[in-house]
């Protein structure tokens, strides 16, 4: 039973990271580095919570959470893509603004019980031992996270649209010369990333806890960014990476039960330490990194007249 319980919590810990990371993967594949994932995510969390509370319907919360992420992302896109502002610094600005705005919006929500997103049990599959309850007796966002990863993997490597997206991230000038609207493609990718980050935030405040606390994303947006690097920009590997991290995160929940006697701060520290270790291990393999890193990542594109 302990193993089953651990599996269930791993999925819960991994899902918000999967959602935020798969969005950022698409953004980075288009050649844009959006460091504002944390800000978009927390805006998604607070807006989803508020909307679900106001309407009593968690699904309204999901939609509003995604929309909040898109709104933040468009602001970022406007500045970095159309005004060619520095992507790293603007991403930081988005995070700072998002954390501030979410704190302001959520001030009255602190301590209020939220609306919980109920599980949708899939008959048959949910009866499989161990993985059934963990994977097939979950809320819609868990299912959606798998669907989005599969959808991104398909579109990115099997369709023309995916080819255009990747080409834009590799060489914006060439893509432009072929008549593609580089800036619009990138804006669309950034908006998609915002929607996914918003969904990740919505998962935190609707499914994982059904409450709002300030700063509840606790660095998950940043971890999602690291997961994209860890996955070397490949959707399948991203899923694996996020679930490995889910495992690290829930160590702090089950550590005590397993009889591990260390200070709680050391447990809380694990995901951050694991992020650093994962980055170091992956980054030292330069051949792997070079093969998949979008060549135009982080460089603004200003079309010639």
């Amino acid at each position, binding site marked *: 039973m302990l193993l089953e319980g651990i599996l269930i919590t791993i999925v819960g810990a991994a899902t918000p990271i999967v959602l935020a990371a798969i969005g950022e993967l698409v953004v980075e594949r288009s050649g844009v580095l959006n460091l504002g994932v944390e800000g978009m995510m927390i805006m998604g969390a607070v807006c989803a919570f508020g909307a679900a509370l106001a309407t009593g319907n968690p699904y309204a919360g999901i939609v509003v959470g995604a929309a909040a992420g898109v709104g933040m992302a468009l602001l970022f896109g406007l500045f970095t893509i159309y005004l060619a502002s520095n992507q*790293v610094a603007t991403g930081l600005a988005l995070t700072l603004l998002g954390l501030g705005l979410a704190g302001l919006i959520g001030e009255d929500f602190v301590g209020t019980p939220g609306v919980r997103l109920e599980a949708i049990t899939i008959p048959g599959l949910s009866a499989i031992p161990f993985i059934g309850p963990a994977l097939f007796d979950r809320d819609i966002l868990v299912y959606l996270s798998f669907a989005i990863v599969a959808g991104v993997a398909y579109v990115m490597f099997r369709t023309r649209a995916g080819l255009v997206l990747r080409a834009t991230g590799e060489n914006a000038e060439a893509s432009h010369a072929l008549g593609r609207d580089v800036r619009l493609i990138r804006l669309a990718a950034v908006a998609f990333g915002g929607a996914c980050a918003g969904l990740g935030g919505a998962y935190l405040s609707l499914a994982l806890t059904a409450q709002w606390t300030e700063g509840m994303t606790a660095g998950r947006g940043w971890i999602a960014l690291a997961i994209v690097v860890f996955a070397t920009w490949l959707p399948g590997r991203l899923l694996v990476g996020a679930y490995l991290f889910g495992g690290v995160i829930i160590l702090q929940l089950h550590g005590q039960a397993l009889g591990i006697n260390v200070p709680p701060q050391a447990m809380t520290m694990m995901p951050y330490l694991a992020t650093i270790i994962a980055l170091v291990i992956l980054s030292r393999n330069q051949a792997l990194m070079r093969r998949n890193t979008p060549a135009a990542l982080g460089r603004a594109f200003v079309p010639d*007249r």
Partner: protein
Amino acid sequence: MQLELVKRDAPSGTMLFAAPFLAIGLTLLTSGILFALMGFNPFEALYEYFVSPLTELWSVHELLLKAGPLILIALGLAVCYRANVWNIGAEGQFTMGAVFGSIPPILFPEWTGPLTLPTMLVLGIIGGALYGSIPALLKVRFRANEILTSLMLAYIALLILDYLVRGPWRDPGGFNFPESRNFSDEQSLPVIVEGSRLHLGILLSFLMVPVMWFFMSRTLAGHAFKVVGEAPRAARFAGFSSSALVYGSLILSGALAGLAGIMEVAGPIGELRPTISPGYGFTAIIVAFLGRLNPWGILMAGLLLSLSFLGGEAAQITIGLSDKMARVVQGLLLFFVLGCDTLVRYQIRFSFGAPKTAEQSAAPAAPVTQGAGDAA
């Protein structure tokens, strides 16, 4: 209508100077609109926020008190950002400076003498520098991205501090509160203005402005940081080691943040607590950019951001505006600073009607460009 950016041959001198003021103006305008949306009289709220803290002597003292750490941290960050090294973990380096610097008063409380305080400050510098050297090592040795590693290390530092003050470093006579023992007078920075909390550390912080200006604009090492950031190839030909500059910038900014950290706990706080900073390390990023990475600009920007902290507190007390607003204003400010930076490097043109070439016919859709026009 569509938006076009036309690259300038050289950065516009007028805009170089005007852009930060334009950004401040846009921030005031947007904040005013936000205040109005929240049901406050925007003019009254803006007055409470940005003017009233300047009308009384004690709050001017507080302004300088909060500006000190912001300026000191931002001076270091500016060196990093000039060198294209993205240290965003100054909050962690600040914290580790405070932790290292607190070793003498907490572990050796009986040791008090003229050397105690200088030892604490030096340990603070060492703590921040060591912590800053970790992302440098990971970047140089393993090419790990310093943005992510420095930020993760900031979370870790805050947890280390939390563990220490709740665990081994908790004051034995402190009724189980998560605090260290209080620092004595010999373990604290002396107050320099009678009747205020202004301490020697604030003077030191402000004195670092001309020092860093001299370093960055009049020494070869300062020049090397700029060249490696602006023209990495030229830096290689000039024989500057990029690894040494990564280490140098992160260690220097870590040292300054660490010094700010120990001066905060040996100054106005007087002990170690779980929370020793209202986010100085992150706000200093805004200070560095608003000050255009220039020490004199950082001086002005630090005072302005300090004002936004104070204004937030003042407006909460007088008109009941949420103190969360301060971070919103700060976030908006950084956005506008970065957006206005575009005006320095580019001319913005709006063209109407058909684009000139066939390739341009796939140009951006109208709604987006209108929004960008507003922001510009």
